[in-house]
């Protein structure tokens, strides 16, 4: 007697579950998980590569910076502002410590103990990433005597704190430490 191979009704149980269903589930899950796992390298390849991550610490000599003077350098290919505050600027920044700010911070929390006159911030406006003015001689320092971003009009005070304009946060203070009295390692 010939067996009708197309008729699989004998394989199903009363609940409509067939043994062959397991093969479908297993095959589709394997293909699905396999396909989904391919996404990981495809997405991950767009993240910063090893050489970009390796260039992530910078040494800065702050010894030659005069009070009131700033220098621009780079950290992770982004501008870094290093400023030596004058005693008047320190006093002004401390006076404003309790002022109403969008992102409240004290001068002390943004500098290292014993080096209150060295202010190190990223030169990247926290709004959309422009380089604020005010680090070089003769540039517009904004209404609060610190930095001014020309793109969308954010004003930062002497301690790099956002005081006016669309930027949501203070200029970022990167991780850094004094490796000697005059050399700072950023990152």
């Amino acid at each position, binding site marked *: 007697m010939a067996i009708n191979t197309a008729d699989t009704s004998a394989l199903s149980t009363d609940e409509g579950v067939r043994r062959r269903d397991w093969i479908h589930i297993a095959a589709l899950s394997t293909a699905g998980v396999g396909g989904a796992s391919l996404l990981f390298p495809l*997405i991950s390849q*767009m*993240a*910063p*590569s090893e050489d*970009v991550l390796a260039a992530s610490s910078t040494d800065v000599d702050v010894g030659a910076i005069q009070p009131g003077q700033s220098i*621009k350098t*780079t950290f*992770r*290919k*982004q*501008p870094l502002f290093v400023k030596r505050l004058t005693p008047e600027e320190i006093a002004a920044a401390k006076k404003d410590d309790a002022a109403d700010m*969008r992102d409240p911070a004290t001068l002390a929390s943004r500098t290292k103990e014993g080096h209150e006159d060295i202010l190190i911030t990223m*030169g*990247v406006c926290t*709004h*959309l*990433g*422009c*380089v*604020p*003015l005010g680090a070089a001689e003769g540039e517009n320092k904004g209404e609060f005597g610190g930095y001014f*971003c*020309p*793109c*969308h*009009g954010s004003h930062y005070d002497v301690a790099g704190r956002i005081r006016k*304009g*669309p*930027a*949501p946060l203070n200029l970022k203070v990167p991780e850094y430490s004094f490796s000697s009295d005059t050399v700072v390692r950023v990152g």
Partner: protein
Amino acid sequence: MSFAWAKQYQPQSAFTKWLDEKLPFPRLVYNAVGAGYPVPRNLNYMWNFGVLAGFCLMLQIVTGVVLAMHYAANQAVAFGTVEHIMRNVNYGWMLRYAHANGASFFFIVIYLHIFRGFFYSSYKAPREMIWLLGVVIFLLMMATAFMGYVLPWGQMSFWGAQVITGLFTAIPLVGEPLQVWLLGGFAPDNAALNRFFSLHFLLPFVIAGVVILHIWALHIPGSSNPTGVEVKQESDTVPFHPYYTAKDGFGLGVFMILFTAMVFFLPNALGHPDNYIEANPLSTPALIVPEWYFYPFYAILRAFTGDLTIPFTGIVLIPAKLLGVIAMFGSILVWFILPWLDKSPVRSGHYRPLFRKFFWFGLIPTMAALFYLGGAHAEEPYIMLSQIFTAYYFMHFLVILPIISQIEVPKPLPFSITEAVLGKDKAAEAPRAGTVDGTDAGTATDGSLQPAE
């Protein structure tokens, strides 16, 4: 997918008969843009811009592929290779100017195409899908244009990339890692330039694919027309070829005169001089603005200067930066729900007195103002004006359109396109239950949905 009276393709020679059996490509063309596609007889010149947009896309692909033969997407040499194209490559200057101005003209054409859609309500049933696909094409065009502008690696390229990817940092929690991931670094650099080049090359072909869907969706109900009354009978239509191939050909001629005038006599008028300075990560240009075609959306982005807070508590619900980004994307995404915001059954603005007032004295001046404000410095009074016009823009779509579509009394519509063109229509005088030219014209006197098939 056409009207019942559409002419059928008849292959003449032995070769075309053979081809029609194996691969009926000539038949496809005949039915899509040939004599086999009946089109409303009353289309005005606002209906030229679809074909022109298709031409612009082809122009950009051809010039772009050629430019890619001479360009190198490497941060160290990209700026130099663009100058190399301008100075050394034979006709490189012409190809690059055609590509750069071609982008501007593509946007001019697309904006007029969208403007046509707004005024004649081309987004209404049964053409919602055409509209939705069109918005997708517009979004893809914006992404492509942005990435293309980064490739010369000038100051505006670099800072444009910085600012636009900076938009993503507004997203809570994942924003900053997302920006780093998009750029492949902490600032725009080689990784970003390379991936933008790759995507700038890819996306136009994706656009071409969506354009095919857009045209496919269009050919199901057929073109809209200036009366907004649907096609009912053969006398309402003329074949696409030769009538609209000729009309589109004339439009193309006018377009080419304006385009070549720009390419040959004012090639840099729409660009920014700062982009002829090589990218400098340490110095931001005094005024960062995108290309002119993004101005309205940039104005909306910059309009939000204050946080959304709970009054008197100081608790920030949404920071200003995120508000701006949401509004900018929202200003385009709102177009996706436009077919359901404008409930009026009348399509054409000509028969909608109230809608027409708000269109000409509300939406159009608002768009013009936002265009101007997006290119202005971020200072008063421009900020306040941006806020006012941004508010009107959203009001227009979300409040005014739904309300006027409820309260407006439209003017009487013509019986048919034929009546609108000739002043009378024999079919209108015939008994309403009768049939005209084999089609059931009598049952669709209100200009409502009538399938083409």
